[in-house]
């Protein structure tokens, strides 16, 4: 049996029954990586030695009967989460050899479970990108078509899950960075409510938008992983002290009577016909399962991308100021004085897209422009949030495509940042508003590329999102299809 193909919940049971050992699963995963990683390029750093050591410990714990939800499960971690003593690069030259002196809260939770670290996955530099093409460490390819992008910025985590190079993975989502690559790679990806999962140890891109979340092979796995990382953390002032629901055991709750809103602005045009067809099929499927749908209006949505590309770069310009060559990370050689050291270090250490956004953000916060840009964008953000509040008065969930079209070709949009930014058009509002969103596979294009369905829920109502996604998944088989990497399609 190819153990690497299994899901978290399947392995959980097998480990518990003693049918398999974590060590075997871990070895299987690393053999799979040996086979396909050369084609996919999902990882920046692999952790085979640490992974196998951890698997042994996990096996001992399981033998002792003290198995947690993720004990012994090989997981991949996006390379913007700090792991003590392990290289954490954020896909950037400026942190090429940086090793954090501490564990992030989410990493601590996983370690507490004794889950098995597989490695740190590739990402757009500092999570700034929608295709994992801006990484200093190379491009990650889409396992369904190696000539196409995996999405981003959590492209490494999404493709690692799709290519069975891990059992599950963590990503981070600032404007769609979990959901969008999940859709492109045919896996499940969830962005939790802002404040649900601690950001302590997540290298900040845009602090008011960032959230860590799971990328998994199905919805049940997503619920398991979300349970493990959720909860209040006193080290993160923006994490919220609201009890974590039992996402796993409430999965199969009946969804009949559930009210689903279809935001008309999201279907106004510009959507790929295959995407539109499968998303509507999904609506019909949910209706068959007892849910009711109605059209709603989110009238300020058209300004979401504009507001996002002010707020996120503004926060980023400040968050990334600490990479100055003084304390850690890359420092330019033989600078002439302090200012030259700053300028050279940052010019050489950051890539083009990161520099573009630092400049955008610096501009938006500058004296004389603050009111016109940052402040205005914050006001737009409030209006968008109000739209969602109104919508959630008449429905329990919102349903949209995750992205307007399936994965595009590598290099197709790198010359046109605006076109690239618009791939996040359906995912960005959830970050601006702070609500949870999930992307689940809902079909395949004529070219055989995965299509994602996005569900958005109320603040801290991940349970309802997961229930609807689970019900849909139980009656479809899109999540069961795997890419055939052996055929070696694409370049």
């Amino acid at each position, binding site marked *: 049996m190819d153990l690497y193909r299994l899901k978290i919940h399947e392995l959980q049971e097998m480990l518990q029954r003693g049918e398999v050992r974590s060590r075997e699963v871990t070895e299987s995963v690393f053999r799979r990586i040996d086979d396909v990683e050369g084609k996919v390029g999902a990882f920046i750093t692999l952790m085979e030695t640490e992974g196998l050591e951890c698997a042994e410990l996990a096996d001992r714990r399981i033998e002792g009967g003290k198995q947690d939800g993720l004990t012994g499960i090989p997981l991949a971690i996006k390379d913007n989460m*700090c792991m003590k003593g392990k290289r954490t690069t954020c896909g950037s030259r400026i942190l090429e050899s940086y090793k954090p002196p501490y564990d992030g809260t989410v990493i601590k939770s996983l370690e507490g479970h004794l889950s098995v670290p597989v490695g740190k996955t590739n990402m757009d530099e500092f999570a700034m990108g929608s295709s994992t093409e801006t990484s200093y460490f190379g491009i990650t390819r889409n396992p369904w078509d190696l000539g196409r992008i995996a999405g981003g910025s959590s492209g490494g985590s999404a493709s690692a899950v799709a290519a069975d190079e891990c059992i599950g993975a963590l990503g981070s989502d600032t404007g769609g960075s979990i959901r969008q690559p999940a859709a492109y790679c045919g896996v499940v990806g969830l962005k939790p409510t802002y404040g649900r999962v601690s950001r302590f140890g997540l290298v900040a891109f845009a602090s008011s938008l960032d959230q860590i979340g799971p990328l998994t092979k199905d919805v049940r796995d997503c619920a398991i992983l979300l349970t493990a990382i959720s909860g209040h953390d006193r080290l993160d002032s923006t994490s919220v002290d609201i009890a974590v629901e039992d996402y796993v055991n409430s999965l199969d709750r009946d969804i009949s009577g559930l009210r689903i809103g279809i935001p008309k602005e999201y279907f106004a045009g510009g959507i790929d016909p295959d995407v539109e067809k499968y998303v509507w099929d999904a609506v019909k499927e949910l209706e068959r399962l007892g849910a009711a749908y109605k059209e709603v209006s989110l009238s300020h949505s058209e300004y979401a991308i504009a507001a996002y590309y002010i707020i996120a770069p503004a926060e980023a310009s400040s968050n990334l100021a600490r990479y100055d060559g003084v304390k850690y990370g890359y420092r330019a050689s033989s600078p002439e004085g302090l200012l030259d050291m700053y300028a050279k270090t940052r010019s050489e250490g950051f890539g083009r897209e990161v520099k573009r956004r630092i400049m955008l953000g610096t501009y938006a*916060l500058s004296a004389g422009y603050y009111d016109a840009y940052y402040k205005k964008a914050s006001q737009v953000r409030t209006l968008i949030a109000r739209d969602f509040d109104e919508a959630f008065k008449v429905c329990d969930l919102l349903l949209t495509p995750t992205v307007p079209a399936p994965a595009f070709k590598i290099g197709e949009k790198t010359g046109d940042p605006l076109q690239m930014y618009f791939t996040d058009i359906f995912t960005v509002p959830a970050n601006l508003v702070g609500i949870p969103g999930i992307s689940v596979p809902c079909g395949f294009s004529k070219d055989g590329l995965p299509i994602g369905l996005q569900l958005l829920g109320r603040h801290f109502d991940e349970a309802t999102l997961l229930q609807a996604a689970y019900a849909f998944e139980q009656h479809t088989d899109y999540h069961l299809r795997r890419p055939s990497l052996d055929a070696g399609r694409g370049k």
Partner: protein
Amino acid sequence: MECVSCGKCFQLERVINVEFEVIIGLEVHAQLLTKSKIFCSCSTVFGAEPNTHTCPVCLGMPGVLPVLNRKVVDFALRVGLAVHCEIAHYSRFARKNYFYPDLPKGYQISQYELPLAEHGYVEVTTNGKSKRIGVARIHMEEDAGKLLHDERMEADSYSYVDLNRTGVPLIEIVSEPEIRTPEEASEYLKNLRGILQYLEVCDGNMEEGSFRCDANISLRPVGQQRLGTRTELKNMNSFKNVQRALEYEIRRQTNILDDGSEVIQETRLWDAAKGVTLSMRGKEEAHDYRYFPDPDLVPLIIDDDWIEVVRGSLPELPQEKRDRFIKEYQVPEYDAEVLTSSKSLADYYEESVRLFPSPKVVSNWVMGELLRRLKGDDRDIEDCPVTPRYLAKMLKMIEDGTISGKIAKTVFEEMYLSGEDPEKLVREKDLLQLTDEEELDRIIEKVLSGNATEVEDYKKGKSKLLGFFVGQVMKETKGKANPKLVNEILRGRLDR
């Protein structure tokens, strides 16, 4: 003080008041005495090995987040209430962005649009006149680290960064531009520091930088509404330097304006050694700090209960204490002012009065001998070797005639040097007052027989000579003789 025009004659007051009005605003940064830093749990203790009081949070490592120390809010609230500010129920932290090696995150967490407290005042008295100086705002922020420079100062020399101070809590107290003279500025600072010390939120040490002051100063023709161009003065690390720097700057700006030139808006550094201010950076080089609300910290909500708890815990403040001293101890206003100039001095005084309930006598000794001696040694009252208990004991010994008032000065000096019990000192140094009449009689006899001429003169009517005889007896007894007895015996003998 020199004239603002010629720098030679001494008519500063007149010249300024006639021609220009001086507008001064002060910004004070006060380090708060919390045990831990404002956004992490590192210690704030001063003087540790470089970079030992640090953690990933105050080092600004990637991925870390700040968590507000509630104690800092408590301390800042105390100050806000003590200077009669309105407290904001909703305030926010903001990021002040700039690059410098002592600022590990590349931004300082401060408050900008929504500060903790606004619209207060500090009362100052100059030349016998009282005035309220408005406090525009008080906000909380984190301190930066320190740079240590390689002493060689060569091309290959290094600068080192010590981040122990990074994240130590500060409050910034910004005055309204309502200060009109350097004296007022100095008084404002002294009173403000007194308040902070009374509240026990800041040690107020200007030399060590736990109480720092920057000044904004501009001049405008008397009667003009529009403000003149201001300069910002930095690097003044004592009250005296603040006053000197402002005086210099008034002179400098007056000269410029008198010449018909314009003052340039810039930041100037005070050079205490040369006694001048020097340009540091112009308006063009001024930073654009790109303030925006810090998304890592939630808005700070302060409800009435919190404010009332802090208000209830406020100690008696300098002015209240001064008024009480005047009423309760019947000391003159001047004495009350001096005695309440620091909380520790006021405490010292009150404890002494409790043990020796003659407030004016105690006040005379404290304000005289004690403060003179401390000032000479540049010592604080906290380090005074003479405890209130010993001072009171000594005063009792004067009162009951055990020692003479004159000898008491010697006793005090001995106590000051050794910190010993005055009773023990008097015994050991043989300083008891001489009250034995027979013994005094014998000594007086000796003095009179040794000064026969003066005795003759006295008897002829030169009664002033009585003082001379008393002096001789005192000299003979090394000041220990009871002066009252000496007088009586002398008169008895001479006036017979």
